[in-house]
């Protein structure tokens, strides 16, 4: 296809995608699957190859984007590049082909609660200066190479910062090239830009651990609140630093364990939401949408999300009932996802088409819907089912 025609295709897709995200009705339903290890399966790579060699991951993502003719994709949804985590000595991942089998997706290893990356008596240090805490306390605990403050420095310590920094620069710069190649080679839009996590989620994910946080919510609740408030401006800054300068595609928040039943309604209402909502509103005030990638079932909290300004978020449905989500949020926000991964992995193409029809009929009638699986697509999804989801949506999802 001549370059000018490919650019026209890109512009058509960008308009389709952004129109839907602003809760409008485009020419047809945009297709934007968040495909991770599925790309390896399709392109003939192992999980180890796409996790450890990001050029192979980029290649697999481009191949899927071109062959399936999707409107938008993430440049690399196999988001942990284990080459970098190895270079800086991070210990909390099981890397394919090293700690786990080569054809298993990478795994996060949560430490036992009595050996968390942050101790219960360290809240004040975190609150006082979160960045210094991460460098001085957290990093030496999560890296086998970084020497703790006060202990003799080492060759491996010094190397870990140079190698980690250079590797990160190399990796992030490569996303720019990847976006340009997706645009010029298949007319595909890069779906997201920038990362956010909720203050309480990051406390549970990487600092205190989920069990540690549960203890803290009872035993040192004021400290948890103060820590979330201290983290919030930093998380907002980092999110905006990676945002799309053209303000077309959203910053993504990866929502983990801040919902019922992981925490109580009271914890959500008193801590999780009051320390996240201002971040979302700040991002919106700067002209950026946030994609709520609501992993799990967040339907207990839809009333809280409805407090946000119209169009400020795109709400991704995972295990929450997408029809209830549409009924309660559909007038304000675009919705994406809702095609269960078990259907894509273990059912027939006819069943996939039937499920897509059900979602399109009930959720997408007035626009404001983006086709995607419920959760990130891994290598258990069948190729014929991904094709069925794609082809059916392209044919049936015309407005």
């Amino acid at each position, binding site marked *: 296809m001549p370059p000018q025609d490919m650019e026209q295709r890109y512009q058509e897709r960008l308009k389709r995608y952004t129109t839907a995200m602003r809760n409008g009705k485009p020419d047809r339903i945009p297709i934007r699957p968040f495909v991770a290890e599925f790309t390896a399966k399709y392109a003939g790579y192992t999980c180890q190859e796409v996790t450890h060699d990001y050029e192979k991951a980029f290649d697999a993502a481009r191949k899927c984007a071109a062959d399936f003719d999707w409107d938008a994709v993430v440049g690399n949804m196999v988001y942990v590049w284990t080459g970098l985590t190895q270079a800086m000595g991070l210990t909390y991942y099981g890397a394919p082909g090293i700690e786990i089998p080569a054809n298993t997706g990478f795994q996060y290893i949560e430490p036992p609660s009595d050996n968390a990356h942050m101790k219960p008596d360290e809240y004040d240090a975190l609150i006082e200066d979160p960045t210094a805490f991460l460098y001085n306390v957290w990093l030496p605990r999560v890296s086998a190479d970084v020497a703790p403050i006060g202990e003799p420095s080492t060759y491996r310590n010094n190397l870990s910062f140079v190698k980690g920094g250079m590797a990160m620069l190399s990796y992030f710069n490569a996303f720019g090239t990847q976006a340009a190649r997706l645009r010029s080679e298949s007319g595909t839009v890069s779906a997201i830009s920038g990362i956010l996590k909720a203050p309480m989620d990051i406390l549970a994910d990487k600092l205190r651990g989920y069990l540690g946080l549960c203890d803290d919510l009872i035993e040192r609740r004021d400290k948890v609140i103060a820590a979330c408030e201290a983290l919030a401006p930093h998380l907002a800054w980092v999110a905006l630093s990676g945002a799309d300068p053209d303000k077309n595609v959203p910053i993504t928040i990866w929502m983990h364990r801040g919902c019922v039943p992981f925490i109580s309604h009271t914890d959500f209402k008193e801590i999780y939401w009051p320390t996240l909502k201002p*971040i979302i509103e700040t991002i919106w005030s700067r002209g950026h949408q946030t994609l709520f990638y609501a992993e799990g079932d967040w339907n207990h909290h839809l009333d809280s999300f409805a407090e946000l300004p119209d169009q400020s978020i795109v709400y991704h449905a995972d295990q929450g009932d997408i029809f209830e989500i549409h009924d309660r949020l559909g007038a304000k926000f675009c919705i994406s996802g809702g095609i269960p991964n078990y259907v894509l992995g273990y059912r027939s193409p006819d069943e996939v088409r039937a499920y897509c029809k059900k979602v399109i009929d009930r959720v997408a009638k007035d626009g404001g819907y983006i086709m995607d699986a419920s959760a990130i697509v891994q290598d258990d999804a069948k190729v014929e089912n991904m094709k069925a989801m794609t082809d059916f949506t392209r044919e049936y999802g015309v407005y």
Partner: protein
Amino acid sequence: MDEVKDAQAGPKPGACIPWEDKLRELPEITGDKELVQRVWEDIDSLAYVYIWQVLLSF
């Protein structure tokens, strides 16, 4: 609409070693002070992004 509050303690977001701290270590700047500040802050922010991205993305 509520906006996120500024950091209550420690350096502001985007900084590890604030320019004000660095400035105290330097002799009197006889040339372009703003240039020195801008380059210091630009590079310092890379160190800031590094640790926060390790926390969030890796």
